[in-house]
């Protein structure tokens, strides 16, 4: 029996019966049933798929999906204080303009000639992020920060031929899960304790755990919980004394004002590009970068593509190509640490490049300054509330901070539930991820928050807890 097809569909030019017949005739076939003849009958479906009926016009499609999507309340309709790995920043209009260009949006795997623009934009993105990090080599982006960290640890394992990584205990548990799955088997992950007062890494515990089998030590700045880890130089020394590699994760939006990890000894830097011009997209615009010095032992371990600049046969013309492409299959054969390349998040790399071109050095500085001022203000104001500590950790942070509600007698869940009624998305409830902190929430303040937003938050919480 024949399953019916959708004729004259606008996306399928040759669903036009007349053309279809003409093509079939050319091929000496009678009907579309004469296609797929190599598939045995017992594998073939005998009736049409049971799917919802297609919309018969573009208008109806749009209207119906918009109706579903309008059930969402966006972070622009409410005031949003959620961060925790995905941050709401302002996205300059030019970023959207460029990444919606059909050529980039629908480009893929052309050659350095006809996709010259793709190569150049990605080379520029690499170069711009390299300046921000004060490092030499940056990859074409991978999936997200977690993937970038996991790959960095595998790179370190291949370079050192060791099989263990020591990871800061304040890492985001979701990020840790991704790292653990990706590194299993091959690289064992061990967590290092943190100081309960400051959040900083417990250096004694680090010294106790580091060994000649330690491939890498990993921490983040700012940390997942927002505070700064200012013992970079000490951690670097402990790490390097044991011949291990220092991997540091970083939020690049902080680097207009904060020292890049290369300044305190990082060998590999990783992080997320999402704050650099990407909408949140319900977490769908995360994009990981990895950066190293321009040394062969590092470069040869990248599984990602690295676009380099090169001359063409015509004087005065820039060309591009893949650096040391064969390495992408190399890896350390013994540890089977071989990785792979594939479709990851190139368009977001292009966008990050556009963002940094627009922001320039002053923009990044002002962004950082604004965020530091606003978060300090929010912490101070929240601390004025009875039973609330604006910052759980006795340590300065960037963009995010842990608000302690333990003495209010209320749970974060309760508070957030009530904030929602007031049109506010409260900070992330940490009571499950870090039970030792009790009722704490991770708040995020960026340049999108006006003073009145913060004041509204403080006012709302006061109403809830008093």
């Amino acid at each position, binding site marked *: 029996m024949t399953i019916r097809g959708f004729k004259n569909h606008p996306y399928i030019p040759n669903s036009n019966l007349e053309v279809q017949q003409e093509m079939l005739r050319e091929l000496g076939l009678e009907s579309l049933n004469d296609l797929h003849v190599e598939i045995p009958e017992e594998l073939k479906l005998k009736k049409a798929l049971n799917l919802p009926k297609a919309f018969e016009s573009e208008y109806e499609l749009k209207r119906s999906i918009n109706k579903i999507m309008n059930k969402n309340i966006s972070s622009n309709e409410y005031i949003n204080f959620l961060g925790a790995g995905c941050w709401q920043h302002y996205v300059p209009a030019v970023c959207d303009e460029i990444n919606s260009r059909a050529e980039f949006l629908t480009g893929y795997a052309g050659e350095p000639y006809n996709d010259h623009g793709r190569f150049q934009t990605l080379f520029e993105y690499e170069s711009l992020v390299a300046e921000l990090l004060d490092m030499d080599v940056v990859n074409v982006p991978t999936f997200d920060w977690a993937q970038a960290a996991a790959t960095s640890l595998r790179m370190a394992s291949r370079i050192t031929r060791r099989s263990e990584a020591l990871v800061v205990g304040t890492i985001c548990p979701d990020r840790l899960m991704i790292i653990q799955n990706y590194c299993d088997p091959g690289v064992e992950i061990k967590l290092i304790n943190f100081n309960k007062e400051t959040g900083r890494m417990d250096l004694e515990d680090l010294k106790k755990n580091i060994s000649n089998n330690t491939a890498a030590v990993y921490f983040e700045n700012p940390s997942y919980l927002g505070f700064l880890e200012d013992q970079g130089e000490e951690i670097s020394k402990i790490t390097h004394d044991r011949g291990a590699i220092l991997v540091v994760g970083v939020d690049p939006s902080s680097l207009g004002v904060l020292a890049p990890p290369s300044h305190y000894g990082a060998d590999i830097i990783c992080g997320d590009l999402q704050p650099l011009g990407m909408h949140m997209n319900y977490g769908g615009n995360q994009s990981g970068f990895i950066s190293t010095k321009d040394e062969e032992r590092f470069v040869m371990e990248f599984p990602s593509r690295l676009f380099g600049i090169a001359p063409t046969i015509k004087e005065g013309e820039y060309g591009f190509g893949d650096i040391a492409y064969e390495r992408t299959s190399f890896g350390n054969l013994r540890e089977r640490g071989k990785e792979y*390349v594939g479709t990851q998040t190139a368009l977001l790399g292009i966008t990050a490049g556009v963002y940094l071109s627009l922001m320039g050095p002053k923009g990044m500085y002002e962004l950082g300054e604004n965020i530091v001022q606003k978060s300090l203000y929010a912490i101070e104001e929240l601390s004025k509330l009875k039973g609330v500590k604006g910052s759980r950790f006795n340590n300065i942070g960037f963009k995010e901070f842990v608000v302690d509600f333990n003495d209010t007698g209320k749970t974060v869940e309760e508070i957030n539930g009530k904030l929602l009624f007031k049109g506010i998305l409260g900070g992330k409830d940490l009571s499950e991820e870090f039970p030792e902190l009790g009722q704490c929430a991770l708040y995020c303040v960026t340049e999108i928050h006006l003073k009145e937003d913060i004041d509204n938050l403080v006012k709302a919480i006061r109403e809830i807890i008093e």
Partner: protein
Amino acid sequence: MKIIGLIINPIAGMGGRVGLKGTDGIETLNKAIQLGAIKEAPNKAIKALRKLEPIKEKLLILTSSSDMGENQCKALGFNHEVVYKSNKITVFLDTLNAAKIMEKRGADLIIFVGGDGTARDIYNAVENRVVTVGIPAGVKIQSPVYGNTPELAGELALMYLKDGNLHIKEEEVVDIDEEAFRNNQVRTKLFGYLKVPYKKEWLQNKKAPTPLGEEESQKAIGLDIIDNMLEDIYYLIGPGTTTKAIMDQLNLPNSLLGVDIIKNKTIVKLDCNEKDILDILGNSVGKLIITPTGGQGYLLGRGNQQISPKVIEKIKKDNIIVISPNSKIVELKGNPLLIYTGDEALDKNLEGYYRIKIGYGMDIMYKVSVGH
């Protein structure tokens, strides 16, 4: 200044046009001349040498008299020095002696023009001590030491001399039993290896890992074998560069063309003949590691006759480990690997599917059939 050796076997290829299969041996050559054969090789040499003109000023060519190179250098105006003279019709000794002198004079590269027989002579003279480029002119070209055309060989030489950053690999010198060949029997044999430069093809699969180059593959295979070696078991390492990579990574001496036996990662005996193998094995378990050698995908029966039916019966089929870089498998174009031990029943028994180790932790299932 770069010094190159130029060796032209002027009679190479003469047999072909007049229906003879090669010009090895004076009688055959005389016959070829009687039949009106003309010299092909000198012209081919010129085609290749033209490619070197861009670096003409920086070259000194060491060569032999008359049509063995001198005339061609003169014709193109290359700076040259005749280091070997011969008045006779060129025979294998001329190639051999000239190559030896050129090595002694410190040639950076030897360019030779001829066929499989010429490659054999070069190998006998310099083994794998000097980098060579072969310009194809002979009737028989089985050895992959030759460029596809004289022009391509010339370009390869130019690239090697100019940037020096081409990769070097050892390629098989394979030749045919000439008597059998003239009786329409094709039987090749592995004689040795020459060092040749090669240009990595820019295979741009940018979505998936590129395959490893041949040398890296061999290294990877070697690591896999070593990591999985069992204690107190004899390992028979067959001939070939792929098997050699195992020995190299164990830092053991080895015989490229022979069978070496190791146990617990130390040498038991190098270059064993059939009797050595049988004596050493006695009644203990042994594993045989082999790789295709001698062209045409032969696993057994080309250049490794030490691995006799008796040896294989002792080892048993399950203990045969086959290794090969994937590039060699690709060259088979889907044809099976072959065995020909001379023992019909044994050969039949050895047929079937084998796991061919092509990388670290990477096998392919491949068919092995009886050859002839």
